[in-house]
């Protein structure tokens, strides 16, 4: 259990200076997600361009891990097709559970910093919460 593995520089930076924090005008889809065990909650809004996630924003309250995860997610998801997002979601879940092969980790960019979460099982939910919420937003049909 290495705290410095969990709280890497890049995570703390995303957490304190989150990207795409706020709301977008006239979002196509949105979702609210919360963790009943800790009270953390996120609202995610997206604008679609055909099959692509064209714009994305989030607001919410959460720990460094969930906030950094949300911030990095907005970076990664923007411009991706729904299918590409699902692939990414799958990788991300494996990553934080410590089940992702080393080589797959590389293509994840900043997100790879979340690998340290796998040593803290109780925090896995924090990392995943924004992603589950985005998934619900993508599947939101009005």
């Amino acid at each position, binding site marked *: *259990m290495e*705290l*410095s593995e*969990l*709280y890497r520089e890049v995570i*703390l930076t995303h957490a*304190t200076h989150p990207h795409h924090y706020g709301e977008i005008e006239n979002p196509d889809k949105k979702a609210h997600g919360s963790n009943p*065990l*800790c*009270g*953390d*909650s996120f609202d995610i809004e997206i604008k679609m361009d055909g099959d692509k996630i064209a714009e994305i924003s989030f607001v919410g*309250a*959460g*720990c*460094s*891990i969930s*906030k950094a995860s949300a911030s990095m997610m907005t970076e990664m998801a923007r411009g991706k097709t729904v299918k590409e997002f699902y692939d990414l979601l799958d990788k991300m879940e494996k990553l934080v559970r410590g089940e992702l092969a080393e080589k797959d980790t590389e293509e994840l960019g900043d997100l790879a910093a979340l690998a340290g979460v796998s040593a*803290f099982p*109780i*925090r896995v939910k*924090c990392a995943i919460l924004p992603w589950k919420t985005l998934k619900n937003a993508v599947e939101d049909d009005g």
Partner: protein
Amino acid sequence: MNSLSGCCKKDFPTLKVKVYGKRLVYLDSAATSLKPESVIESIVDFYSNHNANIHRGVYLLSQEATELYEKTRTKLKKFFNTPKEGEIIYTSGTTAAVNLVASSWGRTSLGEGDVIVLSGMEHHSNMVPWQIVAREKGAKLIYIPVTDSGELDLEEYKLIFKNHSVKIVAVNHISNVLGTLNPVEEIVRQAHRYGALVLIDGAQSAPHIPVDISRIDPDFYTVSGHKMLGPTGTGFLYGRKEILKSMPPYQSGGDMIEEVSLKNATWNELPYKFEAGTQNIAGFVGLGAAVDYLISAGMDRVRKHGEELSMKAREMLSSVKGIKFYGPEKGSPGGVLSFNIEGAHPHDIGTILDSEGIAVRTGHHCAQPLMKRLGVAATVRASFYIYNDEQDIESLYSGIHKVAEVLKLGVK
């Protein structure tokens, strides 16, 4: 137990546990307390030497089990000074006790437009059951507001009775987040003046302060045994006899029955009317040992200890940059200290403290409406009990400095 030195760390085997190689600093007693050796041994003794089902057995083992099980009831009656026989109903804890009242009393006594008064600092357990029965019965919920200093606004409370038909008031004795000790005698007097009943949620008071139910004079009082050194799955509901008598059973089945035909059943006497099925027998035997332990510790000293530790902790931590406390300035009779540190989310604080062996609770503490009132999503809560001491406060203090270091709070 003498002021800030814990009475008795050696009596609590969990305190010998090492967490990541470090000494365990258990500061989460408000969630559930540790158990002394004597409680654990009473459970072992029950299962090893008296194991049997109770009440219906003609054989010796069953009689012994029944006696041990009922002896705890006698101890609780004395410890909490309840007026009459048959008023202590065993439950698995406060949640089950409140549900019993909200369902059995609430569903037969509440009607359209009746008012249930709760407070803005209730635990979900003393809130959601009332929301459900209110919706079912068309009753209305009114909340006593929480002042900026974390107390109940008694002026507002009294005003409620002017314009509403209040049927019951349900508030906690000590808040599990703020540690505030509420003026329950005054709350009861006011309600009784208007013919309303009062339920006091004593989950946090029973472990920490002397509770004299005859003096407070509530109609219901709920206790969680597992927070007062007792086994998990134990607690009780005190109820005023006349009211309990008029209430229908809550759960039904074995033991709570007088006679059963294919169509119908008649109920056993109090308290058995409300104790259906095989109970947590070993648990209640253990709860008796917990009461014995608290008696010998002395509840006045237990209270003083909790107050002093929470005050001392507040003093020490107040030097931490960006820290904000919630709750009474003078220390909490419930031994509770809730706080936040600017720039650090409670979860991150909890994880980092854990790495130092320090167990604190983080989150909404099952009091989301209070969190909203405080304008936060979560807090860190350190709660102290009889086995904590000044050294534990020092560990917490160092732990918080580690938090600042890991989260780079200084350099921001």
